[in-house]
């Protein structure tokens, strides 16, 4: 069987937090390869380090030791400014609570990552329209978040995550705040992005039903990968 190159490569990754005099090891010697085009779910009990691992892969947190390589880039060695540029180009983030800006319409929320590019206004609007079409909300593009259901808000958030065509999609409990029907729609959408658009997706979830949509399920316990 042909092995695809690793999109994400973690080696001996440790994350230690210091609280007062106490050291808390959240991740302890993680070695992990995630292939390009993979759809992986990270499961585990609360406090097992899932979100921390996700944050490290996404470049919004720094490891205490070890290396993180994403698409050939050593993320841990980048400066704060370079890391911001790198995230803008390579990572799309989907949050549990959508985190749309309430003062902007759906289209404007999706446009935000494109403000960091050199695209013209018309090109940005074209891409926004396409992204909203993919998530099935083109006709709701001028609606504000308060005018959308939770599921619709999360679909807008997904459009925002992939509108700039990132290498990697990171989803932190994307169905955690949704009912089953809306959650299924969101998972279906993620599967489509993975299968049709070849997006590499790493998703943290507590929900076994959600995890089933992923092609690989990994489990974390007390900061250690215990099962893949």
């Amino acid at each position, binding site marked *: 069987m042909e092995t695809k190159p690793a999109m994400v490569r973690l080696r001996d990754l440790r994350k230690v937090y210091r609280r007062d005099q106490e050291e808390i090891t959240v991740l302890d010697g993680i070695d992990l390869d995630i292939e390009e085009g993979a759809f992986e779910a990270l499961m585990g009990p609360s406090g097992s380090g899932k979100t921390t691992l996700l944050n490290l892969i996404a470049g919004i947190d720094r490891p205490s030791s070890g290396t993180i390589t994403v698409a050939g880039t050593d993320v841990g060695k980048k400066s704060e400014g370079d890391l911001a540029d790198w995230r*803008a*180009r390579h990572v799309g983030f989907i949050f549990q609570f959508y985190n749309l800006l309430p003062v902007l319409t759906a289209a404007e929320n999706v446009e935000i990552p494109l403000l960091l590019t050199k695209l013209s206004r018309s090109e940005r609007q074209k891409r926004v329209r396409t992204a909203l079409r993919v998530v099935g909300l083109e006709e709701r593009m001028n609606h504000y978040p308060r005018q959308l259901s939770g599921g619709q808000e999360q679909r807008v958030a997904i459009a925002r995550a992939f509108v700039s065509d990132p290498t990697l999609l990171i989803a932190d409990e994307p169905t955690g705040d949704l009912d089953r029907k809306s959650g299924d729609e969101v998972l279906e959408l993620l599967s489509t992005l993975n299968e049709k658009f070849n997006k590499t997706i790493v998703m943290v979830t507590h929900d076994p039903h959600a995890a089933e949509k992923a092609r690989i399920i990994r489990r974390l316990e007390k900061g250690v990968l215990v099962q893949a």
Partner: protein
Amino acid sequence: MNLPVLALRNTFRNRTRAVLTIGSVAVLVVAFVFLRTIISAYHSTVDNARSDRLVTRNRVSLAMPLPLADFEKIKNVPGVTAVTYSDWFGGTYIDSRHFFARFAIDPDTYFTVFKDIAVKPEAIAAFKADRTGCLVGEGLADKYGFKVGDVIHLKGDIYPGDWAFTVRGTFKGTSSFQNGAMFIQWKALDQSLPEAERGIVGSYTELVKDADHSPETAKAIDALFASSANETLTESEQSFSLGFLTGAAAIVSALDIVSIVLLVIMLLILGNTLAMAVRERIGELAVLRTIGFKPNKLFFLALAEGLWLSLIGGVIGALAARPVIGAFLKVASGFLSGASADRWTIPALLVAVAVGLLAAAIPGLRASSVNIVNALRRAE
């Protein structure tokens, strides 16, 4: 959509707070323009006094007159190139609330000494030709709508009687005090008096050849009248103006400080609003950082929000300042009678914007230094 638009939307996210903050900025801008207008009017009166002009008055008091006979003697003092005289006419226009300066002057010499007063030769000629004519400052003309041919009725106090003067022209002085003044002919006033009361003036003003030697010239003038029945005190025009406005000086100094305090209050109000806005939006700022916004962009967003608040408040305040302060100045008197708020509206707007940007600096730094992981955790 772009970042300034996002900042504008954020500005009005909490409408009540935004409206109150903008209203506060607007009120403070009006108050600032008001105070600066008063301070400017005062300084324009004092600071526009020329160093090559001296004023000679009775040593006992400004209220005591001097004889016209001194005119020729002063004219011949070495260093004096021209001399004129004037007298405070006083009187009441409508009632005591409508106070403005009224001087009886000698038109043949006055505009030679006060060559910085802009007045058309034909206006001077018309004034000279009419013994009951008068000239009015542009500020006074604006305030009461006086135009050439109008008759101004005054009730005399120092010089009792009902007086009527026909406006023969306007002049533009160098201070709000001058612009709010009215000139009548000294000669006409003198001739209307009983024989025994004629030939007195309030003060002399001299133009000197060399401003650097004006103290010596002042001494020479006073020496002429030493031990006479009417000893004189000659001083620079600026000292004379300060003495004239002596009561106002302390108040103006206090207003100067209060105008700075207004800016500090504006800074605190804007800073408080912006700090609250940033604190409430820490989670959103973390989301923007996650998406790839650099710290400087978040700093810019906070600055832009400060700019919007101060700009909108500043524009409203600047627009309101003219009618509000204008209404006050219409009934103001003394050195304020010819003052205008126009000079301070644009500077006040610019100051408000600068204060807005300054107030946004600390919230901006906080926005730009947000810890993504902690902020996201708190937001959830």
